[in-house]
C-alpha cells in the first residue's frame, strides 16, 4: 500500500516538475530567426525588459495586448518571458556555454498599449520608445535613449548613454556621468537633469508653474526660449561663462538675489516669471539663447 502510494506520489511529482520546466524554459530559436509572442493584458500593464546588448524598440498601439518580437543573430541567447496578471517580464539569458557579448546581442520590437508602465534595463545598444503614455524607468550603461511623444513620469539613469527626448510631456528626471541630454520641443512641467561631462540642450517652451533644473559639471548647457515664455532664471557657472540673449528684468519674486563672489551668475525674470529655471555648471558654459 505504502509502496504503491509512493509510486503515485513520485509520478505526480514528476509531472509537476516536467510542467514547471516547460513553463520556465526560455524560448530559443535558430540563429537569426524572428520570434514573436503575444500577451493579452488589461489597460495600464507593467512591462519590464532586461537585456544586456542590442536594440530595444517600444511602440504603442490601441490593443490591450503586448507583442514581443526578438531576433538573436547568434542563436546563443534565449529570451525568457513571463506573464503574471497585468505584468509582463522579458529577460535575455544565455542559452548555454560560454558566450560573448556579441552572441548575446538581441534586438527587440515590443508593442504595448498606449497607457503602459515601462521599465528597461540594458547595458549597451539603443532604446527607442514612441508614443507610450505611462511611468517609465531606464537604467543603462552605454545605451542611448530616444524617447518620442512620451507622456508620464520618466526616470532615466545612464553612465555614458545619451538621452534625446522629443515632444516629451509630463515629468523627466535624468542622471548621467558623460551622456548628453537633449529635450526637443518638450511640454514638461518638471525637469531635473544632471550630467557631469555631457552637454544639455533644452529647446522648447517653459510651461507656467513648471520647474526646470539643469546641472552639469563641464559640458555646455544651452537653453532656447521664446519671447513669449514666462520664467524666472537663475544661472551660475563657477568657472565657466554665462552667455545671455534675453532681456531680463530684475526678479520681482521673493527676496533679491545677492551676487555670488564666485563664478558668473545671472538672475532675472522674463515676462511674469511663471516658471522657474535653474541652470548650474561647475566649469561649463551656460547659454540662454532666443528661439525666434
Amino acid at each position: 500500500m505504502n509502496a504503491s502510494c509512493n509510486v503515485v506520489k513520485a509520478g505526480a511529482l514528476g509531472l509537476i516538475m516536467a510542467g514547471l520546466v516547460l513553463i520556465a524554459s526560455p524560448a530559443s530559436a535558430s540563429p537569426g530567426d524572428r520570434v514573436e509572442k503575444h500577451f493579452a493584458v488589461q489597460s495600464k500593464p507593467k512591462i519590464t525588459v532586461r537585456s544586456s546588448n542590442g536594440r530595444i524598440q517600444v511602440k504603442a498601439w490601441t490593443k490591450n495586448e503586448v507583442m514581443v518580437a526578438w531576433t538573436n543573430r547568434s542563436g546563443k541567447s534565449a529570451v525568457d518571458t513571463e506573464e503574471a496578471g497585468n505584468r509582463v517580464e522579458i529577460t535575455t539569458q544565455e542559452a548555454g556555454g560560454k558566450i560573448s557579448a556579441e552572441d548575446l546581442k538581441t534586438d527587440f520590437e515590443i508593442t504595448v498599449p498606449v497607457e503602459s508602465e515601462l521599465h528597461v534595463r540594458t547595458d549597451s545598444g539603443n532604446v527607442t520608445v514612441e508614443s507610450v503614455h505611462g511611468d517609465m524607468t531606464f537604467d543603462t550603461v552605454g545605451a542611448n535613449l530616444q524617447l518620442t511623444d512620451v507622456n508620464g513620469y520618466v526616470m532615466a539613469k545612464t553612465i555614458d548613454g545619451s538621452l534625446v527626448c522629443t515632444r516629451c510631456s509630463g515629468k523627466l528626471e535624468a542622471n548621467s556621468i558623460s551622456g548628453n541630454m537633449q529635450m526637443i520641443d518638450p511640454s514638461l512641467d518638471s525637469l531635473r537633469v544632471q550630467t557631469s561631462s555631457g552637454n544639455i540642450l533644452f529647446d522648447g517652451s517653459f510651461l507656467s508653474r513648471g520647474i526646470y533644473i539643469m546641472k552639469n559639471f563641464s559640458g555646455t548647457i544651452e537653453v532656447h526660449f521664446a519671447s513669449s515664455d514666462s520664467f524666472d532664471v537663475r544661472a551660475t557657472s563657477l568657472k565657466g561663462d554665462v552667455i545671455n540673449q534675453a532681456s531680463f528684468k530684475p526678479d520681482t519674486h521673493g527676496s533679491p538675489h545677492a551676487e555670488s563672489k564666485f563664478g558668473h551668475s545671472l538672475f532675472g525674470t522674463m515676462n511674469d516669471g511663471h516658471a522657474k529655471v535653474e541652470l548650474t555648471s561647475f566649469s561649463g558654459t551656460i547659454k540662454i539663447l532666443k528661439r525666434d
Partner: protein
Amino acid sequence: MKFRRKWKAMKMMNMECDQFERILEQQDNGPLPAPALAHLEACETCRILSADLGAIRDAALELGAEELPVPERVWISLRQQLNAEGILAVERPPVPEVPAGWWAVFQRPALAGAFLSLLLAAAAMVGYQSGSVQIAMHSPLASPPAGNTFLSAEKEFKEESLAIGNVLIPQLQIRDAAVTDSLRRNLGVVDHFIAMCENSVREQPDNEMAREYLYGAYEQKAELLATAMNRSVTGGLQ
C-alpha cells in the same frame, strides 16, 4: 558549588560591551544568547548599536533581495583591504570563506551600494548639520582639527570608496568589454571631477557651490561603483 554557578551566571550577565559587540557581529540572523539579551536590556549604548545594525541589515536585505551573490574572491580582497586600512575593527587573519554575521551585508552588490550611500549620507550630514560656513572653515582638505567626527565621516567615505574602487575595478569581469571600458573611463571622469572640486574647496573654503559639487561627485562615484559591482556580478547579463 551553587554559589560558583550563580557567580558564573552573574559574570555572564555582566557582559562587557566589547563582548556583546563580538557576539552581535557573529550572530547570523538568529536570536541572541541569553547573556547578550540581558546585557542589551541593561546597556543603552549597545541597544542603540543593535537597533542601528538591525535597521541597516533590513534595509540592505530589502535592497538586495533580487541580486546575485558577489564572487567570493571580491569580498576576500575587499575585506583584506578594509582590514589593512583598519576600517574594520576586527583583527582576524584573512579566511578563505566568507564569514557570517553583519559582514553578510557586504555580500550583495546592492548592499555594498547601500553602505556607500550610508557613508555618503554621513558625509552630506557634515554639510547640513554643522552649517556650511563652519564646515568650510574647518574643511578636511585644509587640515581639520583632531576629533572632528563629522569631518572624519567625509574622509572615511573618500578612503572607503577609494579602497573599494581599487579592489573592484581591476577585477571587473563583465562580458562586454565596451561596458567595462565605459565604467573605467567614467570612473576616471568622476575622479577627475572630485580632484577639481577638492582643489576649489581648498582654495575657496567658503564656496558652498564647490562643496555641493564635491558631494555630488562623491555620490556619483558611489553610484558608479554600485553599478560596476552589479554589472560585474551578473557578467553583463541582466
